[in-house]
């Protein structure tokens, strides 16, 4: 086993990696930008080092600084978490030069996987179904021509994008150029090759499923139950169910075999997940993520396998500690990502200070969060602030438990996706499986979901509270006006009493 591991990430995954590394008996070292100083991962690490913030750029993407620190501290390995540098070939190469392992699949594998367009070709070569699409290009006119061939809408993708960054749905030709510009500008900031973009047919009304896979140095492999991540907004997953309740056993087996072939062909070592898009019964291979994903915690809960700990352990050359049978299950787990977004205002970011955070409560309800009461949620990073999970004998029970769990999750001070998620968990089309990847993308549908969750009594309470709050404002104003026009100090005292009492 390693003697020390540097966790080079922030937020939810940082804290969870620090925990996993500590449980393995390694020293857990981490980095942080100054405004993340109080976060759980930083507090819980054995050692934490502050990154120097350069005038431009994201500190967690500062390869020079992170490699230099890893080298100085003589760590054995770096855990990249997800996003940021997790799939960055340059980062892996630079660490390698210093004799430090980046915990990820090997060079040739991440080289291929981080290039989505090349990976499409590879998949096609294996005879797997691939969405209609284009080659990588940096010529807007070429992209326009390709889009016409494919037919609108298309998805424009940065060839080396990750984590939902660098993706755009393009509905008409006039939007190609602007989107190309915005993707390349984003690419520069998020450290992937700019100007490398390709197109893919946009299949609306589809489902997303992904198969997590672990494979050790000896080639032993375990395919975990698939996760369905259809409920998204802006290509970011909001709800994860595992296994998927809406695919047939025969389709599941077909996809599983494809996954097995793929990871063996690539001779992958470590943890990856293979993503498919389902258009009815037609499945398309989308991509392989070479890093552990935010949804991994749902699989950990479902199977009882501590995936992060296992990932570090495989990277250290240990064989898998469990077999295929250990992860086969007849239970269902569901995870809801809570984001600091205003779901009544098209998921606008909602930064601010958290006045109070109460996590959901009780047997069978599990939560991960890295924000706490009085923490501030900034605008610099991912808006995901919590993951709530339940596990039950079947999907209905898991959703029922989730509905109550979200009722018991309170975050005051900022707007979050909790109300929408809560309403979603009670919305009949969601319950019956009648949903797709566009489910939350239209305002009309979101309004319908909200409306189904409102009650006449609570509506009346809302009226009453609104009127009473305004009434208190006006009576206060009345009091203050009276005070101002009166020289007697007693009334001034009354007014300040009045104010103080409201604090």
């Amino acid at each position, binding site marked *: 086993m390693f003697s020390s591991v540097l966790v080079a990430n922030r937020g939810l995954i940082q804290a969870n990696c620090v925990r996993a590394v500590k449980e393995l008996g390694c020293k857990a070292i981490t980095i942080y930008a100054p405004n993340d100083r109080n976060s759980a991962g930083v507090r819980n690490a054995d050692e934490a080092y502050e990154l120097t913030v350069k005038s431009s750029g994201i500190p967690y993407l500062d390869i020079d600084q992170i490699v230099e620190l890893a080298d100085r501290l003589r760590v054995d390995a770096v855990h990249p978490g997800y996003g940021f540098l997790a799939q960055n070939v340059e980062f892996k190469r630079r660490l390698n030069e210093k004799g430090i392992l980046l915990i990820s699949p090997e060079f040739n594998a991440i080289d291929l996987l981080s290039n989505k367009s090349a990976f499409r070709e590879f998949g096609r070569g294996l005879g797997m179904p691939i969405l209609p699409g284009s080659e990588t290009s940096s010529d807007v006119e070429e992209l326009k021509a390709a889009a016409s061939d494919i037919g609108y809408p298309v998805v424009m993708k940065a060839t080396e994008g990750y984590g939902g960054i660098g993706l755009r749905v393009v509905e008409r030709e006039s939007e190609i150029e602007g989107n190309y510009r915005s993707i390349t500008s*984003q690419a520069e900031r998020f450290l992937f090759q700019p100007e490398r973009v390709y197109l893919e047919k946009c299949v609306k009304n589809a489902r997303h499923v992904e198969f997590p896979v672990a494979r050790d140095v000896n080639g032993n492999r375990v395919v975990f139950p698939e996760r369905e991540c259809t409920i998204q907004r802006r290509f970011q997953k909001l709800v994860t169910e595992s296994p998927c309740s809406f695919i047939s056993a025969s389709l599941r087996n077909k996809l599983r075999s494809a996954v097995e072939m793929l990871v063996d062909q690539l001779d992958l070592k470590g943890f990856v997940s293979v993503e498919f898009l389902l258009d009815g019964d037609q499945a398309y291979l989308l991509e392989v993520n070479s890093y552990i994903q935010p949804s991994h915690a749902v699989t950990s809960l479902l199977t009882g396998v501590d995936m992060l700990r296992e990932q570090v352990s495989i990277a250290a050359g240990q064989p898998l500690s469990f077999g295929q049978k250990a992860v086969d299950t007849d239970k269902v787990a569901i995870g809801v990502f809570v984001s600091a977004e205003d779901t009544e205002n098209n998921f606008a970011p909602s930064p601010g200070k958290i006045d109070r955070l109460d996590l959901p409560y009780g047997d069978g309800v599990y939560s991960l969060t890295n924000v706490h009461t009085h923490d501030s949620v900034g*605008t610099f990073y991912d808006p995901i602030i919590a993951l709530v999970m339940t596990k039950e004998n079947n999907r209905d029970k898991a959703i029922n438990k989730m509905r109550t769990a979200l009722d018991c999750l309170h975050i005051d001070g900022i707007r979050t996706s909790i109300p929408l998620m809560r309403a979603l968990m009670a919305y009949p089309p969601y319950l019956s499986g009648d949903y797709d990847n566009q489910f939350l993308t239209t305002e009309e549908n979101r309004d319908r979901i909200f409306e189904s969750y409102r009650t006449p009594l609570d509506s009346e309470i809302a009226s009453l509270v609104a*009127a009473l709050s305004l009434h208190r404002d*006006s009576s206060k104003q009345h009091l203050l006006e009276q005070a101002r026009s009166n020289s007697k100090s007693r009334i001034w005292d009354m007014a300040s009493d009045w104010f103080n009492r409201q604090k």
Partner: protein
Amino acid sequence: MKYKVRQADAKRSINIEGKYDFMEESPIQIDKATRMVRILETDTDGAVKTVMIDNRLYHVRVRRRGDGFPEEVVVKGVPYPVNIDKIESTRYRPPPAPKKIAGDVVASMPGQVIALMLKEGDKVEKGQSVLILEAMKMENEILAPKSGVLKKVASKEGDLVMKGDLLFEVD
């Protein structure tokens, strides 16, 4: 004082007398019913936060418009948009609601303008994407509120904007 509150499902008439102190339970009339109400806690801005209605406890959250008028109340975590549009009182006249100048689009959050899809003078359709504002790793397409001509684009790519800054104007 009498308040008319409009909501999605109903229009309610609410009558509140007196100055409404803490601790003391008082009647409030809603349409034809009377509810006994006691305020337990208020927010820093004076809005009701914890309230006992007919002896039942409610944790609520009032969100206000720019002029301080309540525009939404969250009850049991579910948001209820509210609109108080008529107040009968001899003592207090609320200021008129702020007018929305259609065509002006301001930033609803702090962020960075990462792409302009159109330039000044371009024709624009209602709902078309005009620029992309990035915050929290996410890109937010800012759409044209109506069809017309893009009269003014107040920021260029790379600009950092604060909440409330003008982004562009459609005429």
